[in-house]
């Protein structure tokens, strides 16, 4: 299954590892910030609706 | 326009205007270089054009955050923005004033500092010429950067972050011209490119700077 990377295995694995780490980090941070922003918006929208009705 | 230029020059020359600060910085930086790389004269001679160009560039950068900040705080910029003189012209004048008070002294000081760094004799003329052609671009690009960051509190560091990448082409062609001049190589191309950058910056960047400034003081 695992291909034989020969003497360069550490470089190839390092490149793939670093990339996956950075991309996963980017996606996770994006999602986390997005969820927080959407939750904050929802909260404040509800508050506005309540205030609007008195 | 002339009145504005004279006013800016007077303000810069007055005590506390920061005149001479860039020059002193340039001197100190040049003196520190041999301490950091060693006193071998051959090494110093080969890096002298690049070091002097970098020093001039950083000295130029040092005074940029004062370029518009003081006028912004006391409301002069609001007056300028509504004055009959187009804001583009006013900013070009400010860039010229910055060049006269910062760029020109650096150009004049550079050959003396070149002596400290063992610059080869044939390099002096070319160093001065390349700085003379390149420093106007540094002032104009810096004015644009100052216009972008003038509304930001403590924008000095940000200003450096924005302006330094924009300085890359000027530095490359300027230092390359000075380097080639010092070792007696053909240097027409970098000199022409350098002049092109300066002329292009002076022609176009006032518009970008004025646009940015209007966005801030709107």
């Amino acid at each position, binding site marked *: *299954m695992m*291909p034989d*990377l*020969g*003497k*360069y295995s550490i*470089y*190839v694995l*390092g*490149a*793939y590892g*670093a*990339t996956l780490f*950075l*991309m996963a*980090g*980017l*996606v996770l941070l*994006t*999602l986390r*910030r*997005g969820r927080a*922003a*959407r939750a*904050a*918006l929802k909260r*404040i*929208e509800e*508050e*506005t609706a309540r*205030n609007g009705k008195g | 326009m002339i009145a504005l230029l004279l006013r800016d020059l007077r303000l810069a020359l007055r005590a506390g205007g920061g005149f001479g600060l860039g020059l002193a910085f340039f001197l100190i930086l040049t003196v520190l270089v041999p301490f950091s790389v060693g006193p071998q004269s051959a090494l110093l001679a080969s890096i002298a054009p690049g070091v002097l160009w970098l020093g001039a560039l950083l000295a130029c950068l040092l005074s940029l955050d004062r370029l518009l900040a003081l006028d912004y705080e006391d409301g002069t910029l609001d007056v300028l923005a509504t004055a009959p003189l187009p804001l583009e012209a006013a900013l070009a004048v400010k860039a010229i004033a910055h060049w006269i008070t910062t760029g020109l002294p650096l150009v004049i000081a550079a050959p003396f500092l070149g002596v400290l760094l063992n610059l080869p004799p044939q390099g002096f003329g070319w160093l001065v010429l390349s700085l003379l052609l390149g420093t106007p671009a540094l002032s104009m690009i810096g004015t*644009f950067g100052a216009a*972008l*960051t003038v*509304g*930001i509190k403590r*924008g000095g560091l*940000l200003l450096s*972050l*924005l302006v*330094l*990448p*924009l300085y*890359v*082409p000027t530095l*490359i*062609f300027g230092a*390359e011209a000075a380097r*080639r001049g010092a070792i007696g190589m053909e240097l027409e*191309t*970098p000199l022409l*490119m350098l002049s092109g*950058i300066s002329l292009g910056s002076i022609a176009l*960047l006032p518009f*970008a700077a004025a*646009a*940015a400034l209007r*966005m*801030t003081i*709107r």
Partner: protein
Amino acid sequence: MSLWEYANPVKFLALSARVQPVAWAAALTGIVVGLGWGFFGTPDDFRQGSTVKIIYIHVPAAWIAINAWIMMLIASLIWLVRRHHVSALAARAAAPVGLVMTVIGLLTGAIWGQPMWGTWWAWDPRLTSFLILFLFYLGYIALWEAIEDPDTAADLTSVLCLVGSVFALMSRYAVLFWSQGLHQGASLSLDKEENISDVFWIPLVISIAGFTLLFIALVLYRTGTEISLRRARALAVRLDKEL
């Protein structure tokens, strides 16, 4: 029905909600297939050995790094000319993605360069240009973060993006000239697109497609985030006044 309809945040969000699931799924498939195929299913290059597998990351990342900036430039122009908020926010949303891709491009390039060129870094024109692009991304993002008023921030970053693009292009030519001047044409750069055989080419194209789709999905989602933040901000201001 014109394209400008989507300048309306509500319409944009509705479209984005429909496109996003497809984009995320396709991006994941493209990246898994492209990188998986590249990693497990391609032979070693006779000259580069197994390091050739890094190409399936390096080239797509570099591709996105450049195109993200071009997309930001177009979005900035649209904002300056037509003043559609979605456009300005999309430019803001794309910048960090472009930054990360630039870092990935530089990093994988360095990791590939160490065994192949015997050095992590060389001042080769391509590498240097990417490093400069990295600096431009940093400045652009820092300017966004520094300005409080969102419209002013959008204005100023757009101007920076425009002027920065011109200077980035000039830097590219300056660097070509400068590095040539130093190395006399003894360039280390490897011409990637030429002489590449189909075995490597097909997974590479799939990977590029996957990265591009991931970029689209991320930018759509992040633009949605920025729209929510702006709306929340506006509502908060109004609430303060009413209370």
